[in-house]
């Protein structure tokens, strides 16, 4: 292992350190739930899903509600969790699904409005803008200007996330 170099995330309130602490906490919890030795591919897949959700959730929590994409991601995770929780009770699942549908209807309606007003200006790259909207969480309900700003912040957070996860994996795989 290479010798220790300068500390990279000294600032306790930086995005990186916030994400790191949260993610490690989540990882500890996940690993405590099931021992890894008895993992079939299916369990491995479940663990992978859980870790991915934990990573996204930690990142969104580190950003809190300051950004549209983090709010959208947290909302999505929470709604998915509540859907799963309420799967036994049909009424609440119907309620959550109607909530999701109404939100989707609202966003599509907003998108239609936006398209009619700004269609003339963005004829060249509406397709790409739509693709970007699908990638960035919460992007459906944003106009192009805000979408670009959110994308910039999202890219920054993703790079932080990848850096930290890579370091963790590297640190613990040796």
């Amino acid at each position: 292992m290479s010798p220790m170099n300068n500390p990279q995330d000294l600032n306790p309130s930086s995005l990186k350190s916030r994400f790191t602490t949260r993610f490690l906490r989540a990882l500890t919890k996940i690993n405590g739930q099931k021992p890894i030795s008895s993992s079939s591919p299916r369990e491995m897949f479940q663990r992978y899903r859980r870790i991915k959700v934990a990573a996204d959730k930690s990142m969104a929590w580190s950003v809190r509600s300051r950004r549209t994409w983090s709010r959208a991601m947290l909302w999505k995770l929470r709604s998915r969790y509540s859907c799963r929780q309420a799967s036994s009770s049909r009424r609440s699942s119907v309620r959550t699904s109607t909530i999701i549908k109404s939100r989707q209807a609202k966003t599509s309606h907003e998108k239609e409005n936006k398209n009619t007003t700004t269609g003339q200006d963005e004829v060249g790259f509406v397709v790409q803008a739509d693709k970007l909207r699908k990638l960035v969480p919460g992007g459906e309900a944003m106009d192009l200007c805000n979408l670009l700003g959110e994308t910039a912040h999202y890219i920054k957070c993703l790079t932080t996330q990848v850096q930290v996860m890579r370091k963790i994996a590297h640190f613990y795989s040796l």
Partner: protein
Amino acid sequence: MFPSLHSLGSCTYNGMDLTVLEKQQARLKWLQQQQQQQNYVVQNNAHVELCTSSVPQFQGLLGSSLCGGQLVELKMPEVYLGSDDFHKFVNFSVAGPEFGVSKMDLVMPEAAADYSISRTSGCQMTAFQTAVIKEEGEDVVLEKMESTTGRESFNKRKAKAVADYKCKDKKIKEVEAESEVKTKCSAEVSRNSSKEKSKASEVQKPDYIHVRARRGQATDSHSLAERARREKISKKMKCLQDLVPGCNKITGKAGMLDEIINYVQSLQRQVEFLSTKLAALNPSVEFNVDNLHVKEFPAYVANFPAAAKSPAMANLACLQLNPLQKEAVNCILDATMHPPGTATEGIASASMLIPEQALGSSCVTQLQPFSTWNTDPQCLYNVYNMGFH
């Protein structure tokens, strides 16, 4: 020594902040001392003549004649265009009725008193504008300088000044067209095609954007707002260009957007891959937060090549996994990196990517079991489907 300044101070302005004037005076004094030139006072009956050879000074003086009482805060007053060029003049007038003043006297240091141009009503004006945009959660001040005088040399000099003003944290663009959104001044704009605007502070985000219409262009609010919107979008595209690696050569919004989309997708795939890796880790060591923070992370610089998959593949190769875990990780990796329909293509591309990396000899031996991928795609499909149930 500054009689005109006192007269300046004595002018009544509607809603004007006199501390602005004091600041301008202090700045002027400082610039005067620097340049060691005589003051040149220009007075005119109905117009204001302004002779300047240094833009920051002019900016400072402009700040005292604001529309709307907002303050221009200069970032770099020490940038000095050169006092030896006496041919640069800017004429400028203030809309009298709006401010309640009929004239304004300004002091400009000037080496020669002969070069002054009296302003006619149709003359252009100079406007300086600062805009604040939020970049990545931080406030970045953009200074936009614009000069539309009749003298071309001033434009060249202004371009040089723009270059001078650039510093590492701030970007300065020359705004060619601005339009006014504020309705109070819209009548003024329609009356007089050129109007001077300056905008407030560096700290807060402005409520509206001052834009100025170019000569001969439409001045209705729709097209002006449209233009302002387009400026914002192009600004943000420039920010994104800095974030996404390898975008410098690409021009055009469509290409940029494609690049951005690819980059975001590759980042998301990286996250997925790393979570599979973490899922496969043997947690003999606890994920101790203190452990990680005290022992500083090794300098594992996240270098991002354009093909973001390649370092991920290299890492996978070096990972110590038992065969069952390896197969599971392979399946997950395959499932995440490519949709089910293109699994075989994914294998081919993945196996192509591995040789691209400079792998150590110890890692090469790890690659041998991976050859089993090509022989058994069916099993991958089974595991993938199983994982979703």
